[in-house]
């Protein structure tokens, strides 16, 4: 009978071999990453990276663990921006008072993220770097036009979210760059917001999600921002929908126009979870709900949108 003890045969290991380093400073982490010549990986929460390593889809030469670098686990207000450090975990972001006050749409989105056990480890910046088009963190970073702060031995680089998400699970980081933080402008105090997501099981990836922020000016919507996820190769900001809503008074007819436009412009995938048609339909339903919330929170009349 085989012994229960690990017998030293490498075949009993899930991941391929790699070296492991635990730097104490971000400079050291950047140096290690540069020295790995593109084969190194940064690990923070590991909730997306470790499954890929277990499947040997990713075989890094070295894992650089940033969890013990002091100061990266903070959410701070820097001027008019909220800065989320590289090791801030989902449970922190979901319950942080600065986020709830200044980025309430992010607060709402975070309530849909994964399960308690994954939230205890997974990080905001790690999820942004992973660039899953059906994950909340890339979506809110994209539609609020956040900035990704990348670090390498060449220094810091500020990457607008619009330039960061280039494909499904593909970002625009150079091989020697790591995400140091994500910064997002605070929402105006008077802004209304709505976030609606549909997933088959709480915490699962979304079949579709819709987010809106706007403020009210003389009874009309202004500074409308619209984001979606789960319906494209990257997290989306949708100027076509923003145009419909900008400087209009929300009504049943406007909501219907939004749903129809979504149906025209979205090209979601059909997969095992849902058909493209179903995702398009869902997008319209979620859009109406989220826009009603945003409208009412910005001070609009609820009756205008009932029907």
């Amino acid at each position, binding site marked *: 009978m085989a012994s*229960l*003890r690990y017998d030293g045969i490498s075949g009993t290991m*899930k*991941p391929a071999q790699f070296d492991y380093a635990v730097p104490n400073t971000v400079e050291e982490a950047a140096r290690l990453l540069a020295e790995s010549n593109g084969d190194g990986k940064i690990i923070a929460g590991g909730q997306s990276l470790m499954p890929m390593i277990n499947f040997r889809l990713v075989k890094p030469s070295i*894992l650089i*663990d940033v969890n013990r670098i002091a100061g990266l686990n903070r959410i701070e207000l820097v001027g008019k921006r909220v800065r989320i450090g590289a090791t801030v975990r989902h449970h922190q972001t979901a319950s942080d008072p600065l986020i709830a006050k200044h980025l309430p749409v992010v607060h709402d989105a975070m309530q849909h993220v994964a399960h308690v*056990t994954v939230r205890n*480890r997974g990080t905001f910046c790690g999820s942004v770097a992973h660039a899953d088009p059906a994950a909340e963190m890339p979506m809110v970073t994209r539609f609020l036009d956040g900035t990704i702060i990348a670090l390498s031995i060449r220094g810091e680089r500020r990457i607008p979210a619009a330039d960061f998400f280039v494909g499904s699970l593909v970002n625009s980081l150079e091989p020697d760059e790591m995400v140091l933080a994500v910064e997002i402008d605070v929402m105006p105090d008077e802004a209304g917001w709505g976030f609606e997501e549909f997933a088959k099981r709480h*915490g699962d990836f979304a079949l579709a999600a819709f987010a809106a922020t706007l403020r009210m000016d003389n009874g009309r919507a202004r500074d409308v921002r619209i984001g979606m996820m789960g319906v494209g190769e990257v997290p989306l900001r949708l100027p076509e929908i923003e145009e419909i809503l900008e400087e209009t008074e929300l009504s049943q007819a406007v909501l219907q126009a939004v749903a129809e436009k979504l149906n025209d412009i979205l090209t979601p995938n059909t997969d095992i979870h849902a058909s493209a048609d179903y995702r398009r339909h869902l997008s319209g339903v979620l859009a109406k709900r989220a826009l009603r919330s945003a409208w009412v929170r910005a001070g609009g009349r609820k009756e205008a949108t009932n029907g």
Partner: protein
Amino acid sequence: MVEKTITVGVNGMSYTRTVEPRMLLSDFLRQELTLTGTHVGCEHGVCGACTVLLDGRSVRSCLTLAVQVDGSEIETIEGQGEIDRLGRVQEAFRQHHGLQCGFCTPGFIMAVTDLLRHHPLESDEQIREALSGNICRCTGYENIVNAVRELARERGPLT
């Protein structure tokens, strides 16, 4: 590849071992420490069977490397109780028949231990959401929810 020597507290005992960096915490517990109560199901973070507590918070041990927990405290199912002296969470699962085959149970027990310490469990909906990271293929969850409801009631609201 350079092996690392780590010291880890597990259920109040200190262990020092030299391991490959790629060794998962789940394999470390099972193979190095022969603590086989932590079960491995999917091994990619979906099923929750391998849930343990890391410095008091639940984590998936199959998505954590042993070298990452150097200097940390781990709690596993072995620390909950013994066959003739079950821990409180185990006892609630037994009373409510919150298990059948038992494969997922260690993960549930550890996840529930974290939930009882840190999370509001005031409605069945909250309980079901809180349990949604653990998969059970036998019970249909009803009796697990019943057990957790009783534990939450006993605990009272979080202060």
